[in-house]
């Protein structure tokens, strides 16, 4: 359509752009107004026609294409919020995704839409005394949940903090305060800098656990009153009836308000185009969980929603070599989590901010 070029205002006054409708409109009014306004209206009309035609054309084009991504991206782009969809719309959206992912990753990818079960509220308990800081949970999570990986950008939902075993002595009382170390960015009385809380998560010793340290893994606490949900301007992140806080990736606008609101550093942003090698991709996915994400959306731990909705433990629970991670139904008095709550000394991280986490730390 060479004659229907998108009109651009040419400020050079080039005679070649004399046919441009905007250029023809003369605001000074030395000429007759009627044809000018007519041609302007004509331009708007033409423009409207053009954009409608181009959309239809694009749709026709992409459905004929072999490119898995192009085939579905148009429909995917214009779909509504998952929570507001009818069951048919959900199913349509799911099969669209299954088709695209299967082509993209060269295997049979399933996208699950299983809803929450009645009478289930998921809770998690972690024995902070047992954790050895080996980070196996972190890597297992990446295997299971299809996070982006590589040198450019690596997303991990769990962060294992190394903390010093504390002890207050007269000699060490003034260590680490401003003076020698400049402005504090964390840390405690003895060590200048931590990254989050009073721990650091970039530790790299030969063997763990180190004698003078203990370890505290943090991830999404699946709050009952989640601050991230409160701030989301498009309500794309919400708490599911069985507890986990999830993200509808297609509805996410990437504003990252939730990342700022979360007191637990639990949310991650896809700054670049996610990189997920085909052979490492986990084909068993859930719409609200580990399906491949796109650039510009936020993601987080969902307690492995694709596993727990079908009765299986989350991947981090299974992989923990010391059995520090416990998981189950908070409404079932016989569940492992409830037994921990009944019998052990338990605390919740930052309980004072009234987020009511369903993630509990305990000691023997």
């Amino acid at each position, binding site marked *: 359509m060479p004659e229907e070029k998108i009109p651009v205002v040419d400020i050079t006054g080039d005679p070649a752009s004399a046919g441009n409708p905007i250029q023809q409109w003369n605001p000074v009014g030395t000429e007759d107004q009627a044809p000018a306004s007519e041609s302007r209206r004509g331009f708007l009309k033409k423009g409207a026609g053009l954009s409608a035609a181009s959309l239809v054309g694009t749709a026709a084009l992409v459905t004929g294409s072999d490119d898995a991504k192009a085939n579905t991206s148009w429909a995917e782009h214009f779909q509504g919020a998952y929570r507001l969809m009818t069951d048919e719309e959900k199913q349509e959206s799911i099969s669209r995704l299954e088709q695209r992912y299967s082509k993209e990753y060269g295997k049979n990818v399933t996208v699950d839409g299983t809803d929450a079960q009645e009478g289930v509220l998921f809770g998690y308990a972690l024995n902070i005394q047992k954790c050895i800081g080996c980070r196996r949970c972190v*890597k297992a999570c990446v295997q299971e949940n299809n996070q982006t990986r590589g040198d450019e950008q690596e997303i991990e939902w769990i962060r294992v903090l190394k903390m010093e075993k504390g002890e207050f002595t007269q000699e060490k009382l003034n260590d680490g305060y401003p003076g020698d170390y400049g402005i504090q960015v964390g840390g405690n009385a003895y060590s200048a*800098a931590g990254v989050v809380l009073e721990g650091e*998560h970039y530790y790299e010793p030969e063997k763990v656990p180190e004698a003078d340290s203990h370890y505290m893994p943090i991830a999404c606490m699946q709050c009952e009153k989640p601050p991230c949900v409160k701030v989301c301007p498009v309500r794309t992140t919400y708490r599911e009836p069985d507890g986990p806080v999830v993200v509808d990736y297609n509805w996410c606008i990437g504003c990252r308000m939730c990342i700022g609101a979360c007191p637990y550093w639990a949310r991650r942003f896809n700054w670049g185009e996610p990189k997920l090698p085909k052979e490492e991709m986990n084909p068993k996915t859930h719409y609200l969980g580990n399906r491949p994400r796109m650039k510009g959306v936020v993601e987080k731990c969902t307690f492995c929603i694709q596993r727990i909705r079908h009765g299986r433990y989350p991947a981090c629970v299974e992989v923990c070599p*010391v059995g520090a991670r416990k998981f189950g139904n908070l409404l079932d008095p016989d569940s492992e989590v409830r037994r921990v709550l009944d019998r052990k000394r338990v605390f919740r991280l930052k309980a004072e901010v009234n987020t009511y986490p369903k993630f509990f730390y305990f000691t023997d």
Partner: protein
Amino acid sequence: MAFMKMNQLVLFGVLAASSPLAFAEEETVCFESREGSSEVKKTEIAEGLPNVKCSPRAGGVLWWGDPFDGTEPMGEMKIEADYSKGEAVVKPRAPQLGFLPVCGVACHNGTFPVKNDDPNPRKLVMHGDVVPDASDLQHGRGGIWCLDCHHSDTRNKLVDNFGNEVSFDEPQKLCGKCHGPIYRDWRDGIHGKRIGEWASTGKKRWWVCTECHNPHDVQQGARNSGYAQLRPERAPILPKGIYNKDHEGHQAAH
């Protein structure tokens, strides 16, 4: 090194050289909880589905394709607990213990070695690989000795408080003799490890004591911990533009 067994690779090499049907596929072995004593070989249990995914760096299992692969039902226990509601399975320990099939017949055959009734810890002639210094056993702080756990006549069995034989597949019946509160927590699922289904009525694979703890070295020397040290997985990469973990002293100019 636990990741690939060198001796098996060598064996494969010999086979490849001698046989025209050469297959030089590398065998991947990784460990579940206790390095060297809870090993699992990577195989395919269904089209494109491995039984385990192994960590290339630390040699541990990172993911189970089938949580019940290679398990069998757990034996009865005298006290009712979780296992009576759901389904409990365990992985037999015997394949992990190299000498177990022969130790009850080859060396300890009932007449040999001659039974020694001296209860005091002394230097062992054999088994230096298991207990490097038998006079300083790293378990029980001098309070226990071999035959408190191992059956005195039937050496391929353990022994309970009444002198009954206990299978190596059920060490909990032995360990619970002393570690009562831990045993109770383990039965109720709040000590130790389980994989499978989260429901209290679900099917779970239970880890038994010796799958995580080395009973001959539970004190772990100066660390005084029941779990052996192991190599951690790689640290996360630093965010773009950050050059050290303290977020201080950036190399790039602002």
